[in-house]
């Protein structure tokens, strides 16, 4: 018997169980942050159900599913942070009205461990360049969305470790480079649609040309965009 159809029922079964459990957990969860974390599990359930189909088409459907999950996490988490900041500011401004002499009240400073000495971690100086370089190169070789994601993780790793040892980019510098790079990413997106996707249908005889453009543009687009996350100040 064919293994995919043999295991299909069981995979769907597992996907449903994971979905039901995680959804139940969400329905019992009151903290916003925990809800956000649990939705990651829901994505897992979705991916299992798609993977259970087991054809090449299923694999081609997994990739959009993955990306949609990533994209939504990216946007929603940032909205959550922003919301909490606005809420805190509102509370503070309200407090100023209510509490007189607030500035004279003793306040406990949150304890921050400043003794960590990054200088001792040799690996953070030598490894990131190499690993980042390898990952970016490998991503460029892979092309397409997979390549972009690999490239991005290389860039991310490099930029994060640079930030950790104090060579990171300052916020003012980020603002300009950020806009430049995200603009580049958007241009690459347009490139892949206009020169890649449309080209396949308009000029089928030159398909190789469009294929290479599509793969490279998509990899550059995803890689540059997600790699930027590494330059964030946490």
């Amino acid at each position, binding site marked *: 018997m064919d293994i995919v159809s043999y295991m299909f029922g069981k995979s769907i079964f597992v996907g449903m169980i994971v979905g039901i459990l995680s959804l139940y957990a969400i329905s019992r969860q009151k903290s916003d942050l925990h809800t956000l974390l649990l939705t990651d599990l829901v994505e897992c359930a979705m991916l299992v*159900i798609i993977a259970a189909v087991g054809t090449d088409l299923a694999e081609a459907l997994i990739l959009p599913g993955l990306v949609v999950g990533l994209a939504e996490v990216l946007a929603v988490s940032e909205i959550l942070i922003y919301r909490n900041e606005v809420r805190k500011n509102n509370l503070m401004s309200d407090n100023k009205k209510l509490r007189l002499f607030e500035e004279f009240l003793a306040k406990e400073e949150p304890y921050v461990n400043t003794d960590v000495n990054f200088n001792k971690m040799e690996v953070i100086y030598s490894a990131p360049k190499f690993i980042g370089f390898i990952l970016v190169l490998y991503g460029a070789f892979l092309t397409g969305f997979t390549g972009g994601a690999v490239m991005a993780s290389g860039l991310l790793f490099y930029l994060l470790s640079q930030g950790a040892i104090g060579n990171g980019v300052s916020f003012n510098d980020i603002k300009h480079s950020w806009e430049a790079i995200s603009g580049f990413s958007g241009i690459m997106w347009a490139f892949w649609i206009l020169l890649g996707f449309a080209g396949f249908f308009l000029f089928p005889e030159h398909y190789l040309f469009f294929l290479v453009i599509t793969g490279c543009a998509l990899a550059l687009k995803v890689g540059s965009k997600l790699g930027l996350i590494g330059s964030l100040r946490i």
Partner: protein
Amino acid sequence: MSLNIDSIAGVFYGYIPFGDIVFYFTEFSLIGFIIALFFTLVVYLTKPEKQLEFQIGDFGDKLNYVSLEELKIRRLMAIVCGICTAFAMLTGDLFDYALFLAVIGIANMGIVSAVKKEGVLSAAFYYGIIAMISTLPLFGASALILAKTGTLSILELAKNSHDLLFQKIIYAVGMVGETGIAPFYAAKAEMFRAPGAPYILMIHLSSLLIIVRTVEIMLNVH
């Protein structure tokens, strides 16, 4: 191609093939397409209104307005949302339609996320959570339909009967979450309190058109 579609969405006019994904035109989808595009144009041309707001526990009204930076990103999101809604009317593929819904969901979030108000941001966050949850039923149901019938194309699925009632229910639940219809309307309705009418209007238009279109798909696929 199929006669079944004729009796649901009106006269079948033709199709544009993009490989396996076929965009088809019927009376219904053409009207939806034109309305969505026309609205996008109106939204692009309209200046946001200046909104007067009641103050609780205080006298006088507060004037809300949309600053230029905010206007730019929100207008962009509204236009993306409108164009995606227009093409979602035409697409003839279940998975493609689910992806369109995902894009519309994120664009809806984007339209309000630039507003610096706690209530609106909160509603956007909860709507985002619902949108993330509803990727499970949407994509999951289309995968189940693919496994059961071996195709994702609506035109193929409309040709003969497949007994897809339960898969269709899951798909419809995904649409319910993504468009925020009642009884799950609260998060989305709170987003409408943000200033900037033309952009907010786009959220509403897209979700209403999507609901009608989903009904059409659910009737076609059987």
